[in-house]
């Protein structure tokens, strides 16, 4: 974990309100594990003070990139920044995914919307190929199809409006695949909480392992403020754990869903 003032190397629109931002961060890039995130201070924001967390999307040499959606004032201000401008970044943060190894379970990656960003590095670092299931509301919300294809992964798509791939939630193609076989397979998911909950349920139903990257609002990102907690099983009871530190990735069996959005 380092705090670094980093320069924007490139900044491109991906599709509609999605952007790809590449940052030069020589101290940070080598340390990154799939599923970890960067906590970004968007300096042009002045009356909004907090950092914003983004999954680390890709790593290349001394750079890393994020893939983000413009959803509010922080991402809006970020989207106006240009190559050469600076951000402050604390990264890599959090406890990421267990990288699948050749010969182990086949990874099935499930992503919704910007959740896709957390998946690419996992697929890339995995020595065992698998399938990526990706869902979104419309065609534009389906990200990175080409990127996954380029590293030899199969991609299955579902959109809520049916404009691309199957019509409906991403769990539809996933369930279809699992009905074929769930044996020696493992789920990895990142996306909105209802999707994660659905994936957790599927893992339970098929009695298969799943790692979920949880999306809670964060404040410090490093474990001091206790803002980002979720309920995690502890013996017969539960305890609050910090998704920024103990998470964001959890074994789905650990999670107490009651009380999540």
């Amino acid at each position: 974990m380092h705090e670094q003032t980093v320069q924007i190397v490139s900044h491109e629109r991906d599709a509609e309100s999605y952007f790809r931002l590449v940052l030069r961060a020589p101290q940070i890039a080598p340390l990154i594990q799939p599923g970890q995130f960067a906590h970004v201070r968007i300096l042009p924001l002045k009356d909004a003070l907090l950092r914003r967390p983004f999954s680390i999307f890709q790593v290349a040499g001394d750079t890393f990139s994020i893939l983000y959606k413009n959803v509010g004032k922080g991402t809006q201000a970020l989207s106006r920044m240009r190559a050469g401008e600076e951000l402050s970044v604390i990264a890599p943060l959090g406890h990421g995914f267990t990288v699948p190894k050749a010969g182990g379970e086949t990874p099935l990656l499930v992503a919704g919307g910007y959740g896709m960003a957390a998946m690419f590095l996992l697929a890339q670092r995995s020595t065992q190929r698998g399938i990526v299931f990706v869902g979104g509301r419309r065609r534009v919300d389906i990200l990175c199809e080409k990127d996954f294809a380029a590293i030899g992964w199969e991609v299955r798509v579902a959109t809520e409006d049916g404009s691309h791939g199957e019509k409906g939630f991403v769990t539809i193609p996933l369930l279809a695949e699992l009905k074929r076989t769930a044996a020696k397979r493992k789920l990895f998911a990142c996306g909105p909480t209802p999707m994660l909950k659905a994936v957790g349920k599927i893992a339970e139903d098929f009695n298969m392992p799943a790692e979920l990257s949880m999306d809670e609002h964060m404040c410090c990102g490093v474990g001091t403020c206790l803002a980002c907690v979720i309920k995690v099983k502890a013996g017969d009871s539960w305890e609050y754990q910090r998704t920024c530190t103990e998470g964001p990735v959890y074994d789905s069996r650990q999670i107490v869903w009651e009380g999540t959005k």
Partner: protein
Amino acid sequence: MNLSVQIGKLRMQNPVTVASGTFGYGAEYARLIDVNQLGAVTVKGIRLNPVPGNPTPRTAEVTSGMLNAIGLQGPGVDGFIKKYWPFLRELKVPTIINIWGTTVEEYAEVARRFDALGGVGALELNVSCPNIKEGGAQFGTDPKLLSQVVTACRAATTLPLITKMSPNVPNIAPLAKAAEDAGSDALAVTNSFPAMAIDVNTRKPKLANITGGLTGPAIKPIAVKLVWEASKAVKIPIIGMGGIQNADDAIEFLMAGATAVAVGTANFYEPQTSLQVIAGIRDFMEKKKISDVKEITGSFLPGK
């Protein structure tokens, strides 16, 4: 150049600590900054037993500040001693432990336990947390209750006692005086301000707890005034806090009457802040040829 200050028996190598609840238990930020350069480390509030805290969302961003309703999640005295004390004990700088309870007896018991522990720098009595039903702000807004809490803790420990004041009172003087008279060695001014925010699209409160405490730069002018008013009412030193982002902010609190300052919310967005504040105070003293930081305390010129 002397930057060291005294808070009762507690000597701080410089007047900058961190605000309780914004620095975890010290270890978390130790990976990003050299914690041993601080004047003291102040840890998150502890009561006797473990506390789960409030449901989420626990924080919300607002204009130039944030709301929090963490609900004083914490490991309790034993949990703290087991999990966090080994790290803190080894630091070169003292630890200020922020404590609370739901009864006067609990405050005293927690104080007694930390007195017995040995090696603690000071105890900060949180009588002003807006985010818990019992044991929170009411101790901090009623001079009689405040006096009882401080008196009981005073009897329980010889550690320096810092009473952390509530901000939303018409007049802080009688409360400051009550804490001083009951044996407090110092005051911490101020805690967060009761506040709330609503998401107009969902009509839901932005905090699960509905209300929470406002902190950050937004509150600084109110906090500076509270420090000034308190400093006129008492002789004991004051640790000023509320929205400090840089050395100028910290110096403003010192000039208003604080002997030391604490960096709070700013840690969250800029973990280097406390060290930058120390460096900036040093620069200021050099520029203005001030040899002892204590000369800054209360040095503002109220007359025109």
